């Protein structure tokens, strides 16, 4: 078996001295795996995903991404982050730049790619997410779903080894959720390693290899998709599923 892309070992994190938001969390994601992380709000799932690219520091434990320990001395965090794509709940496109420039910025400034190469790569990715026609537009002129598709393309432009999705569809109007999920499903089927924090159980059913259920800062269950949906091992997961799948 090849080395995991993400390895989280006994991570403890608290924001202030007090109740930890992550309490002894361990999780491994192998290359090509699609792992959905779900759970009630406040369960720590968004915090966990932000720890994976060191946007949030941890107090104890170890996180290894693509063979690099985030806490090791001399680790170049910006370099490492460049290889970890991240998609945010609120898209976070840069509003003062055209769509194409949003995609090119980090390619040029971080990877040192020549502008022409960066544009070619960007255009290919915009086509992949169906946003070619919007390359010269500013993000403000796009709908939420369109912005999120651009944000996914922007993350992919860095040729990441893993993609993190932090509630990527939670801020969207209902009619725009599926256009973003379609892109994510296509990405999953292309073999991309993905860690996806979401409430979209339809997405999990379709492409997840494993479903991780978090509750109160702990991983309560980590099961293959079929088991999680057919026969969840824990009472808490069963309760959660019955609540969100009622309607």
């Amino acid at each position: 078996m090849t080395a995991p892309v993400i390895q989280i070992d006994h991570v403890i994190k608290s924001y202030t001295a007090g109740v930890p938001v992550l309490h002894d969390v361990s999780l491994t994601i192998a290359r090509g795996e699609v792992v959905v992380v779900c759970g009630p709000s406040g369960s720590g799932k968004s915090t966990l995903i932000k720890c994976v690219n060191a946007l949030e520091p941890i107090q104890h434990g170890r996180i290894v991404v693509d063979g690099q320990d985030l806490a090791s001395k001399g680790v170049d965090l910006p370099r490492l982050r460049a290889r970890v794509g991240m998609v945010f709940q609120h898209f976070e496109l840069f509003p003062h730049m055209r769509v194409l420039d949003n995609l090119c910025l980090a390619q040029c400034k971080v990877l040192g790619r020549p502008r022409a190469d960066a544009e070619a790569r960007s255009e290919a990715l915009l086509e992949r997410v169906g946003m070619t026609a919007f390359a010269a537009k500013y993000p403000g002129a796009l709908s939420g779903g369109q912005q999120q598709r651009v944000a996914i393309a922007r993350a992919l432009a860095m040729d990441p080894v893993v993609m993190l999705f932090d509630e990527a569809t939670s801020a969207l109007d209902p009619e725009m959720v599926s256009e973003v999920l379609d892109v994510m499903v296509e990405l999953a089927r292309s073999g991309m390693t993905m860690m996806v924090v979401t409430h979209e159980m339809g997405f999990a059913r379709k492409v997840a290899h494993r479903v991780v259920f978090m509750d109160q800062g702990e991983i309560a269950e980590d099961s293959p998709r079929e088991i999680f949906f057919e026969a969840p091992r824990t009472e808490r997961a069963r309760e959660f599923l019955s609540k969100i799948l009622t309607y």
Partner: protein
Amino acid sequence: MSSFDFEEIHRSLGYLFFDGMRFTLTLTFLAALGGVVLGTILAIIRQSGSRLLSSIAAGYVNLVRALPLVLVIFWFYFLVPYLGQWLTGATRPVHVGGFASALITFIAFEAAYFSEIVRAGIASIPRGQEAAAMALGLRSSQAMRYVILPQVFRIMLPVLLTQTIVLFQDTSLVYVLSITDFLGAAAQIAERDGRLVEMYSFVAVVYFVFSFTASQGVRRLRAHIAVPH
């Protein structure tokens, strides 16, 4: 004194504008430019991680904002030659012209105000923008330069320009150094010809027209550049 003499104004226009107003506009422009640059640096230092540097910058801003401008102009003019002497190790106080002294003072003074504007601007950018920049692998300095500051200047441009209009008026305080700015030029002619009413009225009208026109322009700009988020 005879009736209002428009001819007096007409005769003085060349001196008033080519000597006086040119100085005033040059000083305003350079002081605003220097103030924005230094103010931005102060703002970045204040929200940087270093507590020591941050409190030094904060102390500077608070000190400057607690002093009357005219006092600082005066005080600085007499202090700078000795400061120059001390810095260069010269045997005599270093001669610094009125323009250089005034410019340095205004830059130092305006930087404190501009830094507050820029700081408010940085605070108004959603935290997620920085997180997104970092997640793409940009370093903090790159995130600031390519992502945060361009948005800050766009949002804050009207406020920065309004502050510059105030600065334009404040530059008249250089009269304490007997410098020929626009007001200074008018004052000289007024004294020489005994035409105080004409000259000071004209100066007031010109300041009003310049400032009012500029603020109307800023108002239009404000409507024009709202950044959609």
